[in-house]
Structures are given as structure tokens and as C-alpha cells.
């Protein structure tokens, strides 16, 4: 900048530092919305408790093929997958739509805050909530529902990359999808059904192998099915792979589909992201 403008002699704050500033604000705001905190952390646990209580008597799997586990263990991978989708995709799509509607984004756009720092704050919040939520879910499953957690490090490695890639894909999809609701008020109504339909068709609430073939095919287009399948490969006994429609855990395909969604949503998100409401042009 020219030397005639004294206020700009100081260097602009770096994007990394500002991402941390934003992350601090996001976390603080999140923790102050107690109702949302309770809902996000309790929802997968409550769902698991309900389903395990209702279907607890019926083991999942096929006695004929000798592959059976109790319901809570079968249900856990789907709940982890849905938790990842809720904290990344659903939370972000709604939060950004609301912030666009109420003028937060417009105001930030009027400051020298780089866009990457705004998203950096969101990413930190998403990772933090996803981690805490999954940790609580695993603890409750192990302690209250006697689910045997894997001990093989290879499985935890699979868990790590499915979790991270799933969270990243959900985050980017959430940012891209935030432009779909026309207003902050309609955001919840637009985003929630998408998540619900995916949950029912992706092997979260119903065992995936019991769904009709066409529904399995349709769900295979979307990330949630693959995150759930990846989590099943971590938490279910190896022999249960025979219940997968493909007969394999398909780790390669899982990674490919998630990366494809990540890249596609990134391209769409960058092109369609708006800092202002639609009615502001």
C-alpha cells in the first residue's frame, strides 16, 4: 500500500490467526446455545437407546449364515455416521443460511476478514463437535450397551480416515447447501428432510441389507451410505461382510465417492456462495 495511508502501514493480520479468532467465537457461541448443545450431543445416544430398547430382543444378521450381533452393536456404526452428518452437513447448512439471512455474513464481508478464516472457524467448530459427539457415543455404547469396541489398530485407522473424510465432505456439502434455503427461517425445514431421507435409506435406522435393491442403489449416490458402511467395517465382526450387498466393505469405493462429493461440493460452493440475501441482489 502507499505510504500516504498511515493506517495501512501495519500488516494485515494473517488468515491462520484469524481462523483461530473465528474458531474461538464459534465455539463460544455454540456452547452458549445450550439447547443446541444438548440436542447435538444427546440425539445419537437417545436414538440408539430407543432403537436398542425396541429391537433389543432381535439380533441383527442371519443366524443361518452364522453372522449375528446384538442390535446396539449393529446400530452403533450408523449412529456414528449420522452424527457426523448432523454436526457437519446439517449444522453448517442451517447456521450459514441463518447468518446470511440475519446480516452476519454481509457485515463480515465489509471487514478485511478473509473468507478462508470464516470457514476455518466453522471447520474447527465442526471437528470439535463431531469429535466430542462421537466420543460420547462410543463411551455410552461401550459402558451402557456392552458393545465390544475393536482393539485392532488397523480398524481404528479405518475409523480415523472415514471419520475425517466424512466430516470434511459433510462440511463442504453443508457450506454449498446453505445457499439452497431461501431464508434463515426456512433453513431448518429445507435441510432436515434431506438428512432424514438419507438416514432412512443409507442404513442408519434400518439395516442396509434389508432395504430393497433400488433404494440401496439410490442411497449409494450419496455420502451417508458410504460413511455408514465404512463405520460398519470398523465396528462389526469381519464375517458380517457377507451381509453387504457387494460382499465387500468397499474401502476404495468409499474413499472415491466421498472425495468426489468433496470436490464437487467445493466447486459448486465456491461458485454459488453468497454473502448476502437473495433479495439484496
Amino acid at each position, binding site marked *: *500500500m502507499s505510504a500516504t495511508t498511515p493506517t495501512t502501514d501495519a*500488516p494485515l493480520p494473517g488468515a491462520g490467526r484469524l481462523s483461530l479468532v473465528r474458531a474461538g467465537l464459534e465455539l463460544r457461541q455454540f456452547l452458549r446455545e445450550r439447547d443446541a448443545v444438548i440436542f447435538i450431543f444427546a440425539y445419537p445416544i437417545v436414538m440408539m437407546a430407543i432403537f436398542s430398547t425396541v429391537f433389543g430382543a432381535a439380533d441383527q444378521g442371519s443366524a443361518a449364515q452364522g453372522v449375528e450381533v446384538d442390535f446396539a452393536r449393529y446400530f452403533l456404526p450408523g449412529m456414528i455416521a449420522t452424527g457426523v452428518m448432523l454436526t457437519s452437513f446439517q449444522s453448517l447448512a442451517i447456521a450459514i443460511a441463518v447468518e446470511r439471512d440475519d446480516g452476519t455474513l*454481509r457485515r463480515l464481508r465489509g471487514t*478485511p476478514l478473509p473468507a478462508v478464516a470464516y470457514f476455518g472457524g466453522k471447520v474447527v467448530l465442526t471437528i470439535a463437535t463431531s469429535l466430542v459427539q462421537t466420543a460420547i457415543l462410543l463411551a455410552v455404547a461401550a459402558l451402557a450397551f456392552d458393545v465390544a469396541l475393536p482393539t485392532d489398530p488397523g480398524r481404528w485407522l479405518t475409523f480415523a480416515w472415514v471419520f475425517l473424510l466424512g466430516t470434511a465432505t459433510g462440511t463442504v456439502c453443508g457450506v454449498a447447501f446453505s445457499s439452497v434455503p431461501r431464508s434463515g427461517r426456512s433453513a431448518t425445514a429445507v435441510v432436515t428432510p434431506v438428512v432424514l431421507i438419507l438416514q432412512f435409506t443409507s442404513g442408519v435406522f434400518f439395516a442396509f441389507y434389508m432395504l430393497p435393491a433400488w433404494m440401496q442403489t439410490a442411497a449409494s449416490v450419496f455420502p451417508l451410505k458410504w460413511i455408514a458402511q465404512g463405520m460398519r467395517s470398523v465396528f462389526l465382526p469381519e464375517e458380517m461382510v457377507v451381509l453387504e450387498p457387494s460382499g465387500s466393505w468397499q474401502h476404495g469405493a468409499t474413499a472415491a465417492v466421498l472425495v468426489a462429493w468433496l470436490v464437487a461440493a467445493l466447486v459448486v460452493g465456491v461458485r454459488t456462495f453468497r454473502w448476502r440475501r437473495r433479495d439484496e441482489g
Partner: protein
Amino acid sequence: MVTTTPGRTPARRAADATTELAVRVRGLHKRYGEKQAVDGLDLDIGRGEIVAVLGPNGAGKTTTVEILEGFRERDAGDVQVLGEDPAHADRAWRARIGVVAQDSRDRAELTVAEEVRSTARYYPAPADPDEVIAAVGLAEKARARVRGLSGGQRRRLDVALGIVGRPELLFLDEPTTGFDPQARRSFWGLVRGLRDSGTTILLTTHDLDEAAHLADRVVVVRGGRVVASGTPDTLGRPEARTPVVSWTAGGESRSERTTAPTALVARLAATAAGPDGEIADLRVVRPTLEDVYLELVSHEETDR
């Protein structure tokens, strides 16, 4: 876009240093579908000036300001804000402007102090956040959550967030909406203080009293163009500024426009005064900015 935007060549930077204009707009055009919102608008704002842009709703004020803020693209025209084209603005440019927009209703769970302090960190050389909070009169509310603020307090927070980066150019869009008279007066003091420290201010307002008190210059926009520009005291045609003397004589009310009201009153005292020496219902009225503005705007309307 049909704009010409030379890069920041050394010659250009030298030109910036010598120019005393914070804002320079020539031939600005913006169309929304069939509606020509801005239709050949020219505007100059000198550094350190407070300029009020007035005009009826739909006159093109907001569109123009949003183009200057870099929020909206233009169809045609040359726009320089602090020596740069806002359509290609970077972070360094954003650090030099401040925006207080209308209609911000974000309901953050943060406190006033947290909002102002975090916003200050986005800027390279911000003001002291606590001083800014005190300057807008929110010191007592510094630890209150934003969502609990009243409309006027909320507006003052908007102003605090707009000025905490110590901008060279500040955009104020109807800043005192929802202020009580006392808060409005103290806000005017704050704005004058900013101007005295060298900040250029572009104010859009419907409050003509505010424009008259604050602005060094008033610009009236109508139909997407500037129809009048001048100091609050000289705006409008000379006859619009002429005082009106009114009185009652013989049970009939009379009035006369005159540039010499004192002479007229002296004449009346001699000829039209009652037995007690008083002129009945005597009033000398100097047209206010509001009178001049309304005349300008309605005058334009009849022209169309």
C-alpha cells in the same frame, strides 16, 4: 462491464497520493431488469468531508452506496474509492473503509465487548475496543449479550463495529434510526469527532435535521442522478432559500418572500402595526433544509 480499471501502476499510486478525493464517481449506471436504478450519477467526496446523500426511496441511493462499498457490481461508469475500484477490492482496501449497514439483526450469543474486540482483530491498526464502546455510549452494556440489546443500543453497536478498524472512509446508512434525541445528539458529536480526526464520512439519511447538523455538503439524488449538491445552507435555487415574512393585516393573512426581511418588517411596523405598535401574527421564516429538499424533490417530480 464497460469500466476502465487501470492497474496500480506507480503512476496511478502517485496520482492517488496527490488527489484529495476519497470518492470519485463518473457516469455510474446500474439497471435491475427494466428499472434503471442509477442513471449517470456523478459524485465527488473530498477527504475529510462529511457528505449526506439524500433522496426518496428508490432514488438509487442504496444501490450507489453498495457499489461504492464493493457489495454490488455496476453496469457502467468509473468508480474510484480511496483510489481503487471497489469491484476489485482486496483486504487491504477493506481495512481502510468502514460500513455501518441498515437492517443488521444478527442475534449473536456474544457480548458487546466480545463483538467489538473480535472485529478489531480483523484490522491491521484498530482503535482501542473499550474506547470505541465508551464512545458510542455502550460502556454499561459491554458485558451484555447482543441479543438482549434494545434497537437503539443495537444500532450503536453497529456503529462501533464500523469504526473500530479506524477507517479512512466510513459509510453510515441511516445510523440514528431508533435513537432517542439525546443519543442522537451524542452520536452527532461522535461523528464530528471522527471527521475532525480525518475520517471521510458518507452518510445516507432520511433525517434532514441530521443532514443539516452533520453534513459539510448535501447531495440530493433522484431518479438515479444527482439533482442538487451544496452545503446545507446553500442547497437549492436561491429563491427556495429566500425568507418568508407573514403577517395579518385587516383580518387577512399575507406573506411575502424577500431577501431583505428586516427592511420589510421595518416598513410593516410603520404602516401595518396596530395601535399597540405590534404587527399581528408576524413571522419571519427561513426555509429549512427540509423545505428546500421537499421543494427539490417535488420540483423534479413535476419535471418528469
